[in-house]
């Protein structure tokens, strides 16, 4: 008898297309049925892009305020809905989604759910998100192209006919980034990460069920060449990847590249004495979401109390142990690719041969860093105390709770951080805050005792999507009021 297979298709303007090229994702579904995913050839993407007007006009036909309502409704459907899945009228419950997502990504169920709530919250809070991005302009801006703020007329026009995003697999929450594009009436072309086609597919299904026109969505599991086709043919592109990815696309002004976050917690002179009050913030910054996000801290800089802080953090981190994926208190992730985990483990040990750094967690941990347990391969939380602030591990990021602690005078910290996605600066010094706000190396700045992974909906994350998709032009009239 022929084996039953669930198949995730390509979505071309929302229409399912079953490719003859497929990726086998294995027996990851709760039903025990094998899951495979269509792989789009690059030409299909370039060809669809020629018809992008279909997606744009479908979105243009709906008032932005209605799209915002749809987004809020989509949040509920994404969280609780029985949504279309596969080719043969199959559906997916949220339980099915979480279980399969955990199997594919190695995230425990608890973290799958927290990521899911993050995505849902981005939809639920879409009005606040949009207000933050547009600095308070009304949503009608996207219907009329202009709006009035105080006494000033403002005209914004779209500079991108579509947004192409090549997504990573490490953390499903990253999908919250592209959601506002749809209410800004910009169709999306998405390339899901190899291990997580489920999240963008489910979000798209929720958004379509809530009322968004299906023509606004392209979903293309594809090759590297296909990823390039998405980024290079869409008006604007966002790509996640390594430092090599950053280098590859650095010459393209229409592509926003998200490389390693290298996020950091900086403890100010004024707070160092009171470090114990901020211990939980430091540990959470490192280990929330299994350490998978680019907004997790990979380095903590302290001006003093190096030994006390390092040891206290190491002790807390070492207490976080691998659990079975379905356990509620599971906080760290298995690796879908065990060889990848082994390579990271070896790379860390190799780097530790260079004097000036020590794995402090090793003395508090029960056993080695690399653990095979519950049918998965884990890397246990690791803290590297760097007595040499320029040690190779002092500014390195890995996809698990991994952090270096470095001692530097506060006055030298900003010169040393390098390009950093999130800085949580634990300080109340107005003078230092001014310096921090002037730093060109920080993408998002948290001031005070705030973990790096904290999200405030009104603040843009990883660049302002509105400014990426729209440009303001001067507009004036002697005879009429414009907006």
């Amino acid at each position, binding site marked *: 008898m022929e084996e039953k297979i669930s198949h995730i298709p390509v979505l071309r303007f929302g229409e399912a297309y079953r490719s003859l090229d497929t990726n086998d994702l294995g027996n990851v579904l709760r039903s025990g049925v094998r899951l495979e995913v269509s792989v789009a050839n690059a*030409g299909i993407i370039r*060809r669809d892009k*020629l018809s992008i007007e279909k997606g744009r006009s479908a979105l243009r036909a709906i008032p932005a305020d209605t799209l915002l309502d749809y987004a809020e409704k989509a949040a509920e459907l994404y969280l609780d809905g029985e949504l279309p899945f596969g080719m043969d009228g199959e559906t997916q419950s949220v339980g099915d989604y979480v279980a399969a997502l955990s199997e594919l990504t190695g995230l425990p169920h608890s973290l799958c759910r927290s990521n899911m709530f993050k995505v849902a919250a981005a939809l639920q809070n879409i009005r606040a998100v949009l207000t933050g991005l547009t600095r308070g302009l009304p949503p009608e801006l996207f219907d009329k192209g202009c709006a009035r703020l105080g006494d000033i007329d403002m005209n914004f026009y779209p500079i991108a006919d579509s947004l192409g995003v090549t997504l990573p697999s490490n953390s499903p929450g990253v999908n919250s980034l592209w959601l506002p594009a749809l209410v800004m009436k910009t169709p999306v072309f998405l390339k899901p990460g190899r291990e997580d086609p489920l999240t963008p597919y489910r979000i798209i299904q929720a958004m379509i069920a809530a009322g968004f026109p299906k023509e606004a969505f392209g979903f293309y599991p594809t090759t590297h*060449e296909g990823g390039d086709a998405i980024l290079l043919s869409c008006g604007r592109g966002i790509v996640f990847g390594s430092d090599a990815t950053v280098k590859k696309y650095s010459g393209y002004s229409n592509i926003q590249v998200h490389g390693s976050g290298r996020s950091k917690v900086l403890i100010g002179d004024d707070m160092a004495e009171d470090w114990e009050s901020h211990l939980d913030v430091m540990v959470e910054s490192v280990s929330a979401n299994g350490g998978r996000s680019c907004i997790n801290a990979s380095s903590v800089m302290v001006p003093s109390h190096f030994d006390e802080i390092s040891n206290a953090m190491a002790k807390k981190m070492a207490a976080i142990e691998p659990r079975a994926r379905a356990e509620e208190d599971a906080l760290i992730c298995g690796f879908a690719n065990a060889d990848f985990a082994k390579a990271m483990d070896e790379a860390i040990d190799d780097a530790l041969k260079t004097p000036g750094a020590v794995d402090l967690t090793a003395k508090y941990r029960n056993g080695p860093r690399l653990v095979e347990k519950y049918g998965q391969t884990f890397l246990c939380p690791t803290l590297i105390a760097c007595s040499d602030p320029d040690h190779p591990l002092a500014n390195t990021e890995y996809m698990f709770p991994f952090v270096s602690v470095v001692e530097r005078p506060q006055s030298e910290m900003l010169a040393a951080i390098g390009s950093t996605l999130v800085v949580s600066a634990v300080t109340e010094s107005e003078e230092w805050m001014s310096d921090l706000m002037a730093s060109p190396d920080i993408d998002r700045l948290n001031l005070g005792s705030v973990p790096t992974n904290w999200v405030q909906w009104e603040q843009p994350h990883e660049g302002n999507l509105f400014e990426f998709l729209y440009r303001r032009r001067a507009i004036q009239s002697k005879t009429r009021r414009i907006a």
Partner: protein
Amino acid sequence: MDSTNAVDAAKEDLDRYTREMVQWHFSSETGSPYWLDWAKEAGWNPAEEVKAFEDLMRFENFDDEVLRDTDPARFIPAAFGDRPYNIFETGGTTGMPKQRIGWEDYKVDYSEFSDYYTDDFFPKGENWLMVGPTGPRRLRLAIEHLANRRGGACYFIDLDPRWVKRLIRDGEYDMARKYKEHVAEQAITIMKGRKIGCMFTTPTILESLAERISIPGAGIKGVFVGGTTMTPQYVRFLTEEVLEGKVNFAPTYGNTLMGLAISRPLTAEDNYSLTYYAPQPRAILRIVNPKDSTQGVEYDEYGRVELSTMTKEFFMPRFLERDEAIRRQPCERFPWDGVGDVRPFESTTKKVIEGVY
């Protein structure tokens, strides 16, 4: 004749033809200096000892570096005397190119190719456009011969694969894209300004053209492609979308050393998986065990592609191509083994520069 008899008859023909060709290249009256010297050193006499195709297994795999290092004149069979000859170079190599000599082989190959297709597949009398590697390549003369044989003339747009490979090697992706656009734009100018009915190009350029104009809308009735890997999905995409299901499509597998292998017409059961048949007996494709190329693989299994070319002009036994493919059963029209779903050798484990031109 039933199919078993046809396969047996083709094998007998091949054995007889192999004897003739080996005797031709290894006899002092007709053979070439290169192979005659080779036989002196080898310590056996192929002219006497090769009785059947299987006996070619006594040759090592042909090292194509020889085609770089050796003066091509050393491959001239004595029987050709002082007849002027063509020198052809292989596609994308850099440094000293690999060269082969030839006189009429390309005409034989492309006449046979032409005769395979019906008058309306590539309509007789229509003009052709070739968008692909011209320069020192056999393909340039071959396509013109094909067009002429079918009663048309041929326009050319050159594409230099060596430049494309260099751009990619140097990470100049943007320049590579601009070069592709430059080639496509020139082709479209000709398609709009002249009456063209048939084309030869690479799949990638074909795609690029179709992103700018409708291929059937431009009056193209038949397209002949070769050059890169075509997965079943890619073939489907080209057929259904790029050619809009309205243009006759002839994918081929070939190169300067082989000539060209024709793909059998696709049926619903093929599900867009291509099978090519070499122009046997002039060229023979075997799908072999990569660890021991004297051994073939079973039908429907992947192995490395091995090419033997045997004409009076050129002899090249057991050259291992940089490709792998599935060994497929003979068919009625071609009663010898076919090669299916060709892709770069070990492409599932190694990164290969391919498919850009």
